């Protein structure tokens, strides 16, 4: 082998090895632990086969967490995409390039904020007595408004913060996608009597369908990692109404019972579900 052939391997092998160790060792460890009855209380443990998994399917809190996670995915992905497309098109149609760039800069700030900070900021904004978001309601009715402890609104309030962080960022991406389109077909459509909404419905949407779907998929994967937001704003409450899968796994593993093995089995299920579902969606989208 000459140096030309060995060079790629010299660079690839060590990095891939490191990445594989980082990715697969914890994964293998989690899978291994999920077949045991390990808890944080005692150092002893033994293999119990699929018992953790069987228990999960009769665990109503687990089913609730699955359902909450599903709702969370739907709410955050759709609202982010709608806001992003709406805002992106609005900026594209109304702003001059210079203002656009300024807006893009401003719109990037929320997503640059660590999610923990965003969660704290918004928790305070949602505060029933002092929050700025609840201020108009208090001013009009004179009563406090507690969105985060109301089972009907808590999940939406948390989802709103997620939307605030990602909606603006995605709007910037949508705007850049629109700007990257060749302008002539849009101009031709204007000459072909198309109104603005028709141009976007008939010309830009079909041209941008593939990147937008990928964007939605990225957001869906990102939304799975909602833990920090939920943990700080509601801790899964009130009750278990905002308890997503990762939140529940964490509380089983560390907060309530220290049932490390049980939590691991949940994590493994989550991973399998994610891989299967997203592979399925990805395949569907590409055909």
């Amino acid at each position, binding site marked *: 082998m000459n140096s030309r052939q060995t060079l790629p391997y010299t660079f690839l092998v060590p990095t891939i090895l490191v990445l594989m160790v980082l990715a697969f060792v914890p994964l293998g460890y989690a899978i291994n632990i999920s077949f045991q009855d390990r808890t944080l209380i005692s150092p002893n443990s033994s293999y119990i086969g699929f018992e953790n998994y069987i228990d999960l399917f009769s665990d109503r809190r687990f089913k609730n967490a699955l359902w909450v996670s599903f709702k969370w995915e739907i709410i955050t992905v759709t609202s982010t995409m709608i806001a992003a497309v709406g805002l992106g098109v609005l900026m594209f149609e109304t702003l001059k390039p210079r203002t656009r760039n300024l807006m893009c800069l401003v719109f990037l700030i929320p997503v640059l904020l660590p999610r923990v900070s965003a969660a704290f900021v918004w928790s305070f904004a949602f505060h029933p007595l002092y929050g700025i978001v609840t201020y108009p309601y208090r001013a009009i009715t004179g009563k406090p408004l507690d969105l985060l402890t109301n089972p009907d609104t808590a999940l939406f309030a948390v989802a709103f913060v997620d939307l605030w962080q990602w909606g603006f960022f995605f709007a910037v991406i949508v705007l850049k996608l629109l700007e990257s389109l*060749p302008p*002539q*077909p849009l*101009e*031709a*459509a*204007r*000459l*072909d*009597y*198309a*109104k603005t909404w*028709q141009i976007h419905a*008939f*010309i830009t949407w*079909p*041209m941008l369908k593939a990147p937008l779907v990928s964007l939605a998929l990225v957001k869906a994967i990102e939304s799975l990692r909602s833990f920090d937001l939920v943990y700080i704003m509601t801790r899964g409450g009130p009750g278990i109404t905002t308890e997503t899968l990762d939140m529940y796994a964490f509380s089983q593993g560390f907060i309530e019972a220290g049932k490390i093995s049980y939590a691991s089995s949940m994590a493994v299920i989550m991973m399998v579900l994610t891989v299967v579902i997203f592979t399925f969606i990805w395949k569907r989208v590409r055909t």
Partner: protein
Amino acid sequence: MAGIVCKHLNKKYGEVEVVPDFNLEVEDHEFVVFLGPSGCGKSTILRMLAGLEDITGGELSIGGKIVNDAEPGDRGIAMVFQNYALYPHMSIKDNIAFGLRRLKTSKKEINERVDAVTKMLGLEPYLDRKPTELSGGQQQRVAIARAMIKTPDVFLFDEPLSNLDAKLRAHMRYEIARLHKELKTTSVYVTHDQMEAMTLADRIVLLNAGEIEQVGSPEEIYDYPETLFVAGFIGTPSMSFLDLDVSKTSDGWTLSGTGIVLEIAGEQFALNENAKVVMGIRPSKFHLVDKPIHGKTVTSRAEFVEFHGDEVLVGFSIGETQITAFVKAGNRPQEGDTVHFAVEENEIHLFDKKSERTLRQGTSPSAASPVLAEVGT
């Protein structure tokens, strides 16, 4: 059908004035070509006509209506773009029918009209294909069909043939000419290709840096360029230019410079004693002769001889200036030979050195058109 009137059209991008003051009247059924080097503002003016660029100042009317602020769709125009601008995800049929569908034309009528235009342009076999499955020439034909089906008052063409290869370009040029003969729709056509301009135009509008250098028929522009710029821009290979001094003689004028003395009667030119002029001669207007004649010929050494087929292009210098001349391939000189070229007075162009405007008197070509009349008969 409609004419176009541009009055003092002005376009600024921020501080930069791209089109200072554009005045032009395009008559009904006329085929006008905007010709000029890239960046001369011709596309900007066309896009202002189309409504794709805002008009900073002045007044634009199409078909007698002022349309400065009208939407592109409301101006009664159709446009063909350089890169075709087809809707990439739609079939050819949908591309062509898109405009009519927006107007909520009945399905039956759309089908009839699509049939008619596709037949005219020979596009029937491709109706169900996507634009990417077609060649460049076919795509441009689809773009023309999409413009035609709207039966617009005015056609706008923005360098429609620039993306095609040479052979296809000639063919499409012929087709556009044929369509114009058939439809007689008022057309404005932007190009930087003088061949296209010469062959298609009723009138050429020659632009430079946002301003009109000359407006006229292809013959007028070619035979009677009004400015040095026009003279240099039109014609391939381009005209050769020589800086000369003018002096009066008993029966006419002498034009002299390094290595050249020409005697002319000078009646058709407005000449002054000691004036500085620029003389322009097209390569085809040098006539190879055997012997020098004082005051009527130029003499030099052939520096290169380039074979062009029926003719050869001979390069030589007069003073410091490089000159080219066409010579019949049959009696071409060899490189290094001494050559004598006769120059006819009525085939030279004289321009004022300072203003760069023509010195020809009676600039209106109709006044000076014995040459034209001969061509006509």
